[in-house]
């Protein structure tokens, strides 16, 4: 099987070399050390990460990813799943994350999902009223956390 370029590290290692030995990798748009060049050449998992823009030193994506993932980790589905217990991932977690606060428009649907999910860890379905209360509590928490993140981000941008 022939090796296509994507399976090789695209950095040459001699581009814009700095006195401390680092160089600018055009392909991955970051400055790399000789050790990182070695990882890029010898380790497929590291090379894939750089090709995805998520490798060591890739600052262009760092801030955006940092902000997005912080927000993402506070999704309604994620929080609800945590509250229900981390043993099993709540099947509809992503849908609730996508809906966000707007999930309150889908309460009957969500209640049915949680009732079904509750049978994986207890013998009887959770009470619908309890589920709705939990959901509203989760939404309130997510809103509060999002506000804090926004304030921090606004502050650091100044």
């Amino acid at each position, binding site marked *: 099987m022939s090796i296509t370029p994507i399976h090789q590290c695209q950095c040459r290692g001699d581009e814009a070399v700095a006195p401390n030995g680092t160089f600018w990798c055009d392909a991955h748009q970051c400055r790399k050390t000789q050790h*990182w060049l070695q990882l890029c050449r010898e380790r497929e998992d590291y090379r894939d990460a750089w090709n995805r823009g998520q490798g060591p030193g890739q600052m262009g994506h760092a801030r955006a990813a940092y902000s997005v993932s912080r927000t993402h980790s506070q999704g309604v589905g994620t929080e609800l799943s945590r509250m229900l217990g981390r043993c099993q991932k709540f099947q509809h977690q992503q849908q609730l994350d996508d809906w966000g606060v707007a999930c309150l428009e889908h309460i009957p649907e969500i209640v049915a999902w949680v009732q079904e999910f509750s049978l994986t860890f207890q013998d009887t379905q959770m009470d619908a009223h309890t589920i709705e209360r939990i959901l509203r509590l989760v939404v309130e928490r997510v809103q509060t956390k999002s506000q804090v993140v926004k304030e921090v981000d606004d502050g650091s941008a100044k």
Partner: protein
Amino acid sequence: MGARRRCCCEVICWYFVEPFDQSLSGTTDMGANWNEVVGDWGVIGWRCVEDYSAGGSTANALIITTQQQPLASAGEQYLSLDIYDPQTGDIYYLYPACTGTSRKGALEAKFECLDASTSPQTWDVTIGTETETMEIVPNEFGWVRAICCVDHTAGQAKAWMNYGVIAACWDDSADPGAGRYSGFGHDNSGRDPYGIICDNYFVGELWTGDQICYDCFCRCRKFAPSRELKLTIFGATGRYACAGGASTPMLWDNAPEKQYWSGQVQVTGPNGRTITILCVMHCAAQDPAEHEGQNFTLSLDFVDNDCCHMNPDRCDGAEATVLSTCVPFNLVFGPYEATGPYGDLNCRLCYDPLTELEITTGEFWISVTE
């Protein structure tokens, strides 16, 4: 209300404990849980002994348990054995990841008592290619404990002794193989009346699919980083611009009071000024579910010059950010942002504030990789 179902992640970690409390005294039968491969093993007074009938002891005595761990965790074991009244010259072994009830695995943990006449006693502990000399104090009843753990997935092995002592002999490139059995042994040269006496054999999984068991490796999710890592400063701007690309090996400090990786980054600015940043990374025993690498924290200290006029919460043991990944292993810490007075002489690292008036801010990030 009916009985609650056990949730998926509450799978009990597999383990096997042998307290040697069977009523087998006076026989050579160790019971169905054991296979006496070499030597004459038995149980006397709720203790395991070897060559008790003839006195002395058998060379290279070996016993392997018939209990095998689940296939999913093959080659990933934690073993321990209590040893009574060790004497100078005693050599004990733990055999992890044995491939059968009569076959040892690829690795063995060796515990050699160099001097039992003093307190603490002196032992050499060996696993893989690593040997550490340890000072061991027996408990009040004369017992010491030998411990080892191996990880076939990570290709690592550790061995150490005694209760609560975490200094370990650590070979981070030693593959024990995928054996599911375990055992222990000794190679004494003439003890009497009972050869060796030991007790409380334990073997257990390091983890199951969802649960960390009795582990002894620092983990980023399931990945176990090695004892030597690499720290690199990146994304450096403004007052810290010249620090970008600076890197240092992070080495595991193998002492009871130093269970962490550490390294020193030296950064020399264009003005000829050099500062040294001491970096210390700790690892909590379990990786929380929030994000990968969250159980790693990094502390920074500027040696000689207190140049840490930056967000102090980051300097003092901040956890890895959500940018971190375990595979590939890339812990990301930061941003470290300049917050202190620009006129601080110690902070004239990359620029001279008297000539570069406009550069008043700056930041950098840190990456820790294999």
